[in-house]
């Protein structure tokens, strides 16, 4: 990180840094991770990035996010990288694995789907691969091409 950026983004001693989020999805990432109430969050939007043109960064202080949580980002920010920080140093660099199935993460927009009529945990199966992931509802079998929009 350059000195200039260090002044712009608050460094953390312990926690999780999500880097390389395509702009402007940082707020969506926070929503998907479900970390709004989890202590100090630092959000940086529109940094220059050689890879992405422009990127966002999210830092979650004092919380080591598990893999099952960070893998949720596969649907909206498959390019993101996860760094786990302890005592100010990166102790784990983690890529995002796209799960073949999503349980309870997405909501089916089909009003005639049983998941919107009865108490059922939603299940979606991955059909398209990134960068064009698509998901199919396990119950009503409809295919959705923008799965990021289905996140509850």
């Amino acid at each position, binding site marked *: 990180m350059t000195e200039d950026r260090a002044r712009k983004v608050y460094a953390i001693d312990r926690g999780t840094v999500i880097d390389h989020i395509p702009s402007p999805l940082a707020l969506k990432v926070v929503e998907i991770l479900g970390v709004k109430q989890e202590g100090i969050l630092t959000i940086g939007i529109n940094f220059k990035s050689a890879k992405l043109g422009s990127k966002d960064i999210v830092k979650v202080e004092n919380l080591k996010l598990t893999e099952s949580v960070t893998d949720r980002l596969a649907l909206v920010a498959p390019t993101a990288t996860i760094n786990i920080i302890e005592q100010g140093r990166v102790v784990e660099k983690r890529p995002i694995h796209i799960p073949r199935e999503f349980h309870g993460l997405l909501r089916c927009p089909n009003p005639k789907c049983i998941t919107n009529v009865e108490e059922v945990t939603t299940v979606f199966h991955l059909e398209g691969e990134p960068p064009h992931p698509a998901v199919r509802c*396990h119950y009503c*079998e409809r295919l959705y091409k923008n799965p990021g929009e289905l996140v509850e």
Partner: protein
Amino acid sequence: MEFNQRSIISIRDFSREEIEFVVGKALEVKQGRWHDALSGKVLASLFFEPSTRTRLSFEAAMVSMGGRVVGFADAGVSSTKKGESLADTIRTVTGYCDVIAMRHPVEGAARLASEVAGVPVINAGDGANQHPTQTFLDLFTIHEEFGRLDGLKVGMLGDLKYGRTVHSLAKALSLFEVEQVFISPPSLRMPEGIIEELRQGGTAFQEVEEIDQVQGALDVLYVTRIQKERFADFQEYERVAGAYRLGHRELSALGGQCRVMHPLPRVDEIKPEVDSGGNAIYFRQAHNGIPTRQALLGLVTGTIS
């Protein structure tokens, strides 16, 4: 191939080999090989939405092979009306029967039922989603007629947008070497999702708007009804429906030999003049619902193997 205790929910769950196996068993049943195979078995026929034909076909299939039937023909008489959840209804009924056939207006209802039931569930239609026994009987009928599915050219005519039978049929036929021809008005075309799946799977197909535009002869033409309620303008409906009415002239444009199928009920999309010729196989198709459903009932209860 294991079918014992397996639920039949969606044609998507079946491979080409499994479909061929079911079609083969349906033929054995029709030839009388599995007489009384369902003896001692009880079918719960749960029709949360009325459907006389499908219900009668399931019940006749069960009874004529020695089985018995309990159930209801309308959700108004079930405890759903009292607010019971589908999952609870199914958990209860599971204790009364060996197999469940259910129709429900909500999409995915049969899948959910199969996950909570202790007995196999056969989906007899879940809203606009799936009706797999219809697809199996359609495939059985085509196979019975030609002795094969590979190498055929199958057309589908009419409302291809909302018709779940044609969606499932197109998907199932894509597992075979079948060329598909979709004939519909632009507003009722086969949904893009299905077209894309066919394209990705390398299925040969063409889409046309009129019967006269079909290139080459068809082996099978699967006709579906164009429903009035799909059109805001009645005159537009009349014009479109009229253009897709099948008679002798249209049949000869399709090579004259093609077999005509229809999931029924038919209104006026096939002219009565077609009924008596050798082309019409739609009533036999409907009757094939019996051996096909018997084969499936026997397979999932473990009495046919």
